[in-house]
């Protein structure tokens, strides 16, 4: 990963406000392909708004986000895969059908355009590819089960598999492991790490769990307000106050300590 390559994501002077309420202000950042950005911050400091902007379900009030040098599509598209905390998978499709849906939508076959389905050889090929990915996330045995028959951790594995089938340029994770048990969470971390290195993904992950952010990320952003007006707290938006490069795993503890010190200082 050299700095000479053009960044995959460039954020230029990004503002987002709802009426008088400024959520984000003057965000300027760039991210290289293959980085794993963990995003942390207090509730209501604009993390989710930032993710929605990346996803394309909200538009910036000012500034822009460039993907590969081009302005982002103003609606969700295949370049950006997403895994939410819940409701990411389709309850009426089995695991393998959930993963295949991506191919059924985007292949140029007539049946795909008209019915959103594939038939015959195209379907078999799609299924094979879907099974490969399910294998990778450890769900091959559960391929024919419905999401309601899967545990929370398995559902999140499925959601990741489903997001990866379109080979997105960036993968967005919105508190993906927030609802899972600690043990399962460790497994999911291992899986996420594996997939990230293996598939050379660029990942943005929102998390409430600082140590999770440090453990998984190659870079950690802290969203916080830099200016405060006690009379009108909504007048100033948040920005990335800390941008910490991580050599994954190491320096974890000292950074955590430093950050917590900084936090208690500002608070």
């Amino acid at each position, binding site marked *: 990963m050299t700095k000479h390559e053009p960044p995959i994501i460039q954020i230029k002077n990004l503002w987002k406000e709802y009426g008088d309420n400024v959520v984000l202000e003057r965000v300027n950042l760039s991210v290289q392909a293959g980085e794993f950005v963990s995003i942390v911050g207090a509730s209501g400091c604009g993390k989710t708004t930032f993710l929605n902007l990346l996803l394309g379900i909200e538009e910036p009030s000012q500034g822009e986000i460039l993907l590969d040098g081009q302005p982002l599509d103003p609606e969700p598209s295949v370049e950006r895969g997403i895994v*939410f905390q819940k409701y990411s998978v*389709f*309850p009426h499709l089995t695991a393998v059908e959930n993963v295949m849906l991506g191919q*059924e939508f985007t292949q140029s076959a007539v049946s795909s355009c008209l019915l959103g*389905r594939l038939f015959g050889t195209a379907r078999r090929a799609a299924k094979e590819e879907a099974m490969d990915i399910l294998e990778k996330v450890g769900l091959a045995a559960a391929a024919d089960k*419905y*999401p*309601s028959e899967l545990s929370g951790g398995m559902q999140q594995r499925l959601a990741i598999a489903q*997001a990866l089938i379109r080979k997105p340029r960036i993968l967005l994770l919105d508190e993906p492991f927030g609802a899972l048990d600690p043990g399962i969470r460790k497994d999911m971390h291992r899986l996420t790490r594996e997939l990230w290195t293996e598939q050379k993904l660029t990942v943005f992950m929102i998390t409430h769990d600082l140590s999770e952010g440090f453990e998984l990320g190659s870079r950690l952003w802290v969203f916080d307000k830099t200016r405060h007006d006690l009379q009108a707290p909504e007048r100033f938006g948040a920005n990335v106050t800390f941008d910490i490069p991580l050599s994954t795993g190491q320096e974890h503890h000292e950074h955590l300590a430093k950050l917590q010190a900084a936090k208690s200082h500002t608070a």
Partner: protein
Amino acid sequence: MTRLINRQPSRYSRLMLGLLPFIVLFVIYLVTSDARLAENPSDKLLPSLGSFADAIVRMGFEPSKRTGEYLLWQDTFASLQRLGIAVGLSAMIGLVIGVFNGMIPYVRSPLSPLVTALSLIPPMAILPILFITFGLGELSKVVLIVIGITPVIIRDIQLRTDALPSEQLIKAQTLGGNSWQIILRVVLPQTMPRLIDAVRLTLGSAWLFLIAAEAIAATEGLGYRIFLVRRYLAMDVILPYVFWITTLAFAMDWSLKRISILAFPWYHSAQGARND
């Protein structure tokens, strides 16, 4: 387990307790019917079981002296045909308009207020208009039922479509689906079990409109027969007919539930044991 709210009847006693009110009602009927008949053997209000049996045989298993038809089956067939066509049509219209209303703002804006307004018209009030417009034949009866229940189905499906988690729709878009594909593969299949629920809930009103229309203008049908024999105080025919209609309604409700459980296992397993 001393609190009343914690005490559960066993499987056997649940069955018995469920049957109990029916048995009690039946016994009360027998006793009062006997008492009245003892006083006046030609009393028509509460006929004996024997006269019910006679009436059932006469209506269902002997050809009518006047037309040569088996009246009960002729009535049943006519009524079920009207009901089936009307409910099927309503379900189809309800599904299509409901889903499009729920998913496409440019459809919802013009249609939603119209549907709301239409659903507030009391269908019985426009029955004369239907008879004038569509004549006294089958069409006006079917149209009455359709007008009566379609707006309810549309609004229900629209609400259910709205209630789909936005995460799902966003996810489908990141998988490359266009509007049509998303409606077809994500929204429609998830609304189908809800459509069955909506149909089950509106079946009661559908029967109401059917019998009302038949009572006013028909030459056959379950509702027609009940209102015809009313003139002769023929309780021995009316009560078995009511019982038969109830049985048919129950059978429809039950089969719809079974179909839903068989066809949409994911829906019922996600809902847990709430298969009522």
